[in-house]
C-alpha cells in the first residue's frame, strides 16, 4: 500500500475548453449546488410560521448574528456586513466539512483524488481574503468618504499642517506618515495571513487524515475526523470574525478627522 500525500497545488482532473478543472473546484461546485438547493428550498417555503428547515436556518443565523453583534457593537452594522461575512462563514464551514465526508480521500480519477477540501487550495483562500479586504475598503469609502479613508494610509496633510506648529509636531507628523505607510503593508499582510491561515489549517488536516487513513484505516481516524469538524467551525469563525473586524475598523472615522 502506497502512502499518497496530497500536493500543495490542487490536482487537475480534466480540462473544459482548455481550462483546468481541479478537485477543489469540484468541491466548490458541490458546495454551490448544496447552497443553491438549500436556498431554493428556503426561499420557496419561507413564511412567518417557519417549517423545520426555516426554523433550523433561522436558529443558526440568529446565533451567528449574536456573535457578530459582539464585534460590531450593533445589529445595524452586522446586517450591513452580513452579505459578505455570512457568506464567508457558511461557505468556509460547508467546504471544510465537505472535505471530511467519507469518499473524499478515496475516489480517484486518472490516479488523482476526485474530491479535496476546497479550502486546501490557496487560490480559493486568497480569492476570499482579497474580496474581504477589498470590500472592507469599499465599505469604508461608502461610510466615511474616499479621502478620509485614504488619509488613514497617506497622512501627508498632517505633515504640511505640522510645519506651522514647530519641530516636535513635524517629527510627530513624519512618524504618523510612516505609520500610515505601515498600514498599507498591514493591509497586504491581512490578505496573506487570512489566506495562508485557512489554507494551512485545512491542508494540514487533509494531510493528517490522509496519513492516518493510509496507516490504520479503521476507527483510528474517527477522533481526528471529529477534530476536523471542530477545526472546520473554528476556521470558518476565525475567517468571518477577522473579516468583520477589518470591516468594522475600516468604517470607523479616524480620531484626527472627528468633527468637534
Amino acid at each position, binding site marked *: 500500500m502506497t502512502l499518497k500525500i496530497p500536493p500543495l*497545488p*490542487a490536482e487537475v482532473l480534466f480540462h473544459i475548453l482548455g*481550462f483546468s478543472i481541479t478537485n477543489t473546484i469540484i468541491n466548490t461546485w458541490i458546495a*454551490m449546488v448544496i*447552497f443553491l438547493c*438549500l436556498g431554493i428550498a428556503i*426561499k420557496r417555503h*419561507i413564511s412567518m410560521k417557519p417549517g423545520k428547515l426555516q426554523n433550523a436556518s433561522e436558529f443558526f*443565523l440568529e446565533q451567528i448574528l449574536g456573535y457578530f453583534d459582539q464585534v460590531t457593537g450593533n445589529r445595524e452594522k452586522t446586517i450591513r456586513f*452580513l452579505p459578505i461575512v455570512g457568506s464567508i462563514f457558511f461557505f468556509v464551514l460547508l467546504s471544510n466539512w465537505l472535505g471530511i465526508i467519507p469518499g473524499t480521500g478515496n475516489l480517484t480519477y486518472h490516479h488523482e483524488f476526485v474530491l479535496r477540501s476546497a479550502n486546501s487550495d490557496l487560490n480559493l483562500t486568497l480569492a476570499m481574503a482579497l474580496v474581504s479586504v477589498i470590500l472592507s475598503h469599499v465599505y469604508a469609502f461608502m461610510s466615511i468618504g474616499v479621502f478620509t479613508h485614504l488619509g488613514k494610509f497617506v497622512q501627508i496633510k498632517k505633515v504640511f499642517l505640522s510645519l506651522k506648529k514647530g519641530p516636535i509636531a513635524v517629527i510627530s507628523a513624519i512618524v504618523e506618515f510612516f505609520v500610515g505607510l505601515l498600514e498599507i503593508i498591514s493591509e497586504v499582510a491581512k490578505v496573506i495571513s487570512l489566506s495562508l491561515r485557512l489554507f494551512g489549517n485545512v491542508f494540514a488536516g487533509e494531510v493528517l487524515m490522509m496519513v492516518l487513513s493510509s496507516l490504520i484505516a479503521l476507527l483510528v481516524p474517527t477522533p481526528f475526523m471529529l477534530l476536523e469538524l471542530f477545526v472546520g467551525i473554528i476556521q470558518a469563525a476565525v475567517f468571518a470574525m477577522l473579516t468583520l473586524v477589518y470591516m468594522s475598523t475600516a468604517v470607523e472615522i479616524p480620531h484626527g478627522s472627528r468633527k468637534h
Partner: protein
Amino acid sequence: MDPTPAVHTTKALHNASIFASLGLNTQLFVFQLINFLVISAIIWWLILKPLNKKLEERKQLIDESVDNAKEIETNLWESEQKFQEHLDQAKVEANKIIAKATKEAGAMENKIKDEAKTEIEYLITQAKKHIEDERKAMEIGVQKKAGKLVVAAVEKLISKKMDDKKDTVYISKVLSDLSK
C-alpha cells in the same frame, strides 16, 4: 550597482516557482474567485437575505403585538376605571332613589293611615249617629207602646172605653180630686 538582466530573470523564475509550488495559478485563481462570488451571491440572495427579512418582519410583528397588547391593557384598565366610576355613580344614584322611595313610602303610609283613620272616625260617627237615631226611634216606639199600654191598662181599670173627650173629663176630675 544594478543587477544584470540575468539576475532579474532568475529572481522572477524563482518567485514564479514559489507561487507555482503553492498551487497559485492565475486561471485557477480567477475560477475560484468567480466560484466564491457566485456562492456568496447564492448564500446572500437565496438564504441570508430572505431569512433576515423574515426575522425582521417577525420582530416587527412581535413589537407591534407587544405595543398593541400594552395599548389594549391600558384601554382595558381605563374601561375598568370608567366601569367602576359608572358603577359607583349608579350605586350613589340607586341609594338616592332608594332613600327617596323610602321617604315617599313613609309619607304615603302616613297619608294612607290618616285617611284610614279619618274614614274609620267617619264610619264610627255614622255608626253612632245611626245607633242614636235607632235608639231615639226605639224610645219613641217604646213611649208609644207604653202610652198605649197605659191607656189599655187604664181602660181595663175603669172599664170604660176612653176617648179624647172622656179622657179630658177624666183628667180634670182626677186633677180636682188631687187638689182637694
